[in-house]
Structure formats: C-alpha cells, structure tokens
C-alpha cells in the first residue's frame, strides 16, 4: 500500500463523512463548517491528482470567499434550528429515494462495469497531466482564450445584474 492510496482513503473518507454531516446537521452554521471541511478534503484530493492550482483555487475561492459569504448570511439570520418542512410529505421521500437509487446505480455502473473508453484525442491529455499553474495559464491564454473571454463577459453581466437587482434606485 503506497502513501498516495492511504492519503486518498483518508481524504475521501473525510469528504464523504463531512458531506453527510452537512445535510444532517440542523444548525446551518455547523453545516457550513462541515462544508468547509469537505472543501479541504477535496482540495487534498486535487493535490493527489497533481492539480495544485485547482487545489489552491478550491481553497481560495470556495473555502475562503464563497463559504465566508454563506456564513455571513447564515449568521445574520436566525439559527434556531431548521424546521422540518418535509417530514409530512412522504412522496417527496420516495422521490428522493428513487433519485438516489438511480444515482447509486449509475455510479456503481461507472465504477464496476462501464470502463471509460480511450481518449479520442491525444493532444488534450498532455496538458491535463500536469496541473501546474504554468500549464493552466498557457492553455487559458492560447487554446482557451475565447472561452476565457466569454467567461469574462459572463461575470460582467452577472455583476451588472446583481447590482441592478439589489441596489438600483427607482425614481
């Protein structure tokens, strides 16, 4: 058993357990705390895959920015425990059960039976093999320059939209 496998098992266990804890805690703040932990486990998994940049971005963006804003909002709200809104609607439970069975079958199929077919192109795998910041930067500014720019416009539009919906003064 090599060290990578051991680390993977530890991180994957943390990720799985914390994600369960996220949805079972009734206190929203505690859920958020476990979600942060979950992000850390994911960041560790990315590191194991040699994707250093994604790993750090996962921490900076998700754990460092998005979850802080989440906490910010949750803290301003009441935290007297979430009322159980779904407890008397049984069909929703069955529906959820159905979906989870479907996803479970799908995942087990992916893991056990369906082998992912060979990559149909050779040229992309080279860039994916190394997740260093240099490779990612190079790809983003050459091959993926157009998606990169479109994503910029997407963020601009979203920013404008958010500001209009939240702050625009009506005369």
């Amino acid at each position, binding site marked *: 058993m090599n060290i990578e496998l051991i680390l993977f098992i530890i991180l994957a266990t943390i990720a799985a357990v914390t994600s369960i804890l996220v949805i079972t805690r009734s206190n929203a703040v505690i859920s958020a705390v476990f979600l942060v932990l979950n992000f850390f486990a994911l960041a560790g998994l990315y590191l194991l895959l040699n994707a250093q940049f994604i790993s750090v971005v996962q921490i900076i963006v998700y754990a460092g920015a998005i979850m802080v804003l989440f906490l910010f909002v949750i803290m301003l709200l009441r935290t007297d425990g979430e009322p159980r809104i779904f407890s008397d609607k049984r069909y929703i439970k069955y529906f959820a059960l159905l979906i989870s069975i479907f996803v479970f079958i799908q995942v087990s199929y992916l893991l056990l039976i369906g082998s*992912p077919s060979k990559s*149909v192109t050779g040229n992309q795998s080279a860039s994916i093999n190394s997740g260093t910041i240099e490779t990612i930067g190079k790809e983003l500014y050459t091959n993926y320059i157009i998606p990169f720019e479109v994503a910029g416009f997407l963020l601009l539009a979203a920013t404008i939209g958010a500001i209009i919906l939240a702050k625009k003064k009506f005369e």
Partner: protein
Amino acid sequence: MPFSNQEYLHLLPFIIIGVGIVFSVVIELITKKSREILPWFSILLFFSTALYSIYTIHNKYILFNGMIQVGGKAAIFNFIFNFAALLITMSSIGYLKKYGSNFGEYYILIQSAVLGMMVMAGSKDILMIFLGLELMSICFYVLAGLNRKKHSANEASLKYFLLGAFATGFVVYGIALIYGVTATTKIDILIQNFSAQSSNIIFVTGLILFIIGFSFKIAAFPFHMWVPDVYQGSATTVTGIMSTAGKAAAFSVLIITLTAVYTVNSPNIFSPYFAAIATLSMLFGSIVALTQDNLKRMLAYSSISHAGYMAIGLTASNSYSISGIIFYLAAYTFMNIGAFSIISIIEGENDSRTNIQNITGLNASKPMLAAFMSLFMFALAGIPPLAGFFGKYYVFIGAIKSGFTWLAIIGVFSSVISVYFYLRVVVFMYFKNPTEDINTDTSTFSYSAVIISGAMVLLLGLMPDLLLNLILSVVNW
C-alpha cells in the same frame, strides 16, 4: 500558439458586440444621459453586426483552434439574434418609461444576452455552448425581474431562475458525462466518434441529459412549466426577445450538435424523442391557448406549440427540414416581436391592459395597429401567404420527405386548432364595440419596430425563396 490577426478579424461580429458592451458600461458610468444614448448605441451595434453577419455569410471559418465558427448557419442565426434585439430595443425606448424601469443597464444586458446567443450559435466546443447559454440565461433572469417593485416580475424572475438553473444543471451533467467518456469537448471530434460511442450507455445518457436541458430552453411540452408565468410576468419587451431570440439560440445549439451527428451517421436515434415532444407541445400549446384571456399568456402557450412545430424539423432531420427550422425561427422572430411590440404599445401602467378585452374595438381608434396585429396573428396562425405559413410548410415538407407524414398531419391539425385563438384576437379588434378608451403611448420608435416586423413578415411571406435559398446554401456548414 498565438493566433493570427486574421483570426481576430473574422471574429468581428463578436468583437463589435463585446467592445460595445464595454463601451456601454463606460457610457453608463460617465454620463447621466446614458438612457438616451444607450438605446441608439445598441441599435447601431445590432444593426452593424446583423448587416456584417449576413454580408459575410459565405465566409466560413473555424477559428481559435476549433472553438468557434463564423459564417454559414452561425451567420444566419447572428442575423436573427441581432435583428430581434434591434427591434426590441426600438420598442423598449417608449415602453420602459411606462414600465418604470428605464435603466441604461437594460440595454447592456440585452447586448450581453445577444453576445451569449451568438456564442451559442457559433460554438464548435461544448464548453462554448455552456458559456454562451449561461451568458444568455443570466441576462434573461435579470431582465425578467428588472423592476423589483413588481411582484409579477419578481415571480417571473425567480421562477425562470430556478427552473433555468435546473435545466442548466441537466446540461452540465450531460456535458460532464460526455467529457468523462470521450475526454474531449470538441463537437467535431465527438461527431466523428459518434457511432463508436453510441453503444456506450454513459455517453448516450450524457447526450440525453444535454438534450433535455435544451428542451427546457426551447420551451417544449414536458419542460414548459415556467413559460406562461415567466412570459406573462416579465416586461413585455423582455418577453419579446426571450421568446424569439432566446428560443432561436436554444434551437441553434440543438441544430449544430444534432444535425452534425445526423449527417455523419444516417440513423437518427433521437427521432422518437423529438417526435414525442413535438406532438405533445403542438397539441398542448394549441389546446391550452384556447382558453387564455391574457394576450401575453396566450402568446406564451402559442410559443410552446411553435416549439413543437420546430421540433418536427429536428425529428425529420434532413437538410430541408433543418433549413425549414431556421426559416421558421426567422419568421417566428418577426411575427412574435411584432405582436409583443403592439402589446407593449397598448399596455398601460403596472402591467394593466394586456387582456384580450382591452383591445376590443382597436380598429375604431387605432386602425393601423389593428391591421398590423391582424397581420401578425394571421402569420402566427400560418395563413398563406405570410411568413408563418412558409415556416410550417417547409418543416412539414421536410418531415414528409423523411417519412414522418403522421407528424405533419398532427402539425396541420394543431395549426387548425390554433387558428381559433389567433382569430379571436382579430374578432375582438374588428367586430366588437370598444368598451374603454385605448390610449397608446406616443413613442414613434415602437411603431417603427412594428412596421419593420410587419414588413419582414410580408417580405418573407411573399418571397420566401430569398431567405430559404440562402439557408439551403449554407445549411450543411
């Protein structure tokens, strides 16, 4: 690798709109008069882009390492999007003042939405499809709820956002599965390997999820729940562009992904799916629209049924029926924008007077408006020789050529049903006495939008070959 200047030059339509967005933000920042300047600036942008696209329709290039294509079908779609945005901008000038959200940002969001649609129609990579879809959808979510003081607008925006995000989730999950199996997002490479992959259940699942996501966006039957409330609750001009250019963008994605698959691999494995949603959408839309009194809601249901007619083209999926869809989308854009522009003219303060009773006897006070409204209604119903007729005609012919005669018959049957509620509007305008004063707003720009739409509907109806030959010449690109 660095890209040549030539490639950036070919990207000109995108650059015009993109630079225009940035300039619009700056204009909004530095001058208080932005709401007078921006509509005209937008009209200039849309006009030049539309003109450039149609002018360079035969310059077909795949640019930036197979990311995006210009010319061909993409050019025709760019023309549709920009023309639609142009007309909507014209009718917005007067309408927004009445609606109480006369913001400069409205025009920036319309520009961004158009950029998103253009990216969708031109994409050669699933990544680009997703980015374009999000760019368009986010702008529409915001535009729908632009006036946050109106409950109906809030409801429309939130409903659209939640269901739209749900649909986008389907699309992303589908893309993830496709990428997971094939390790590529390039549409051309996917198509070459389609027959090898089509036995792989994960790949097919991904593709189905992808198509289901876009079925939401085209407002086809089982995924139509958001349409009536969103179309009714949003500002009328926003509904106008959402129902036409937005639908055209979603169809453009289905066309560029699926028809490429069809042309390489002759058996169309998605035909049963599209046949089902086409039948259901046509009948559901037409039948439910019968009982609607609100004009916007009636047009929303009619939009569902039109999505059904267009889906017939996807079922048949020969080059003739695909051309038919594109023609239909162009025709539908002009008819629907015309109709919504008229509604935006007669609409009162606070979303009032959008019911069919409010246009009773319109002929007596505003004969011009009544005449144009009847024109659009006849066109939507598919009465020759107007644009709507030829849209349906080409799609049905395409279906018959591929052996889907029964689908064409259902289409004709549904069209016959739909004549009732379109003509009901005409009957209310001409054969009933006015019950209240109809005071329209006096913005001449809204009228020019109506007149241009009407002219285009007539032009496409009288000389359909003009556009159809152009589409046929580029449909396989």
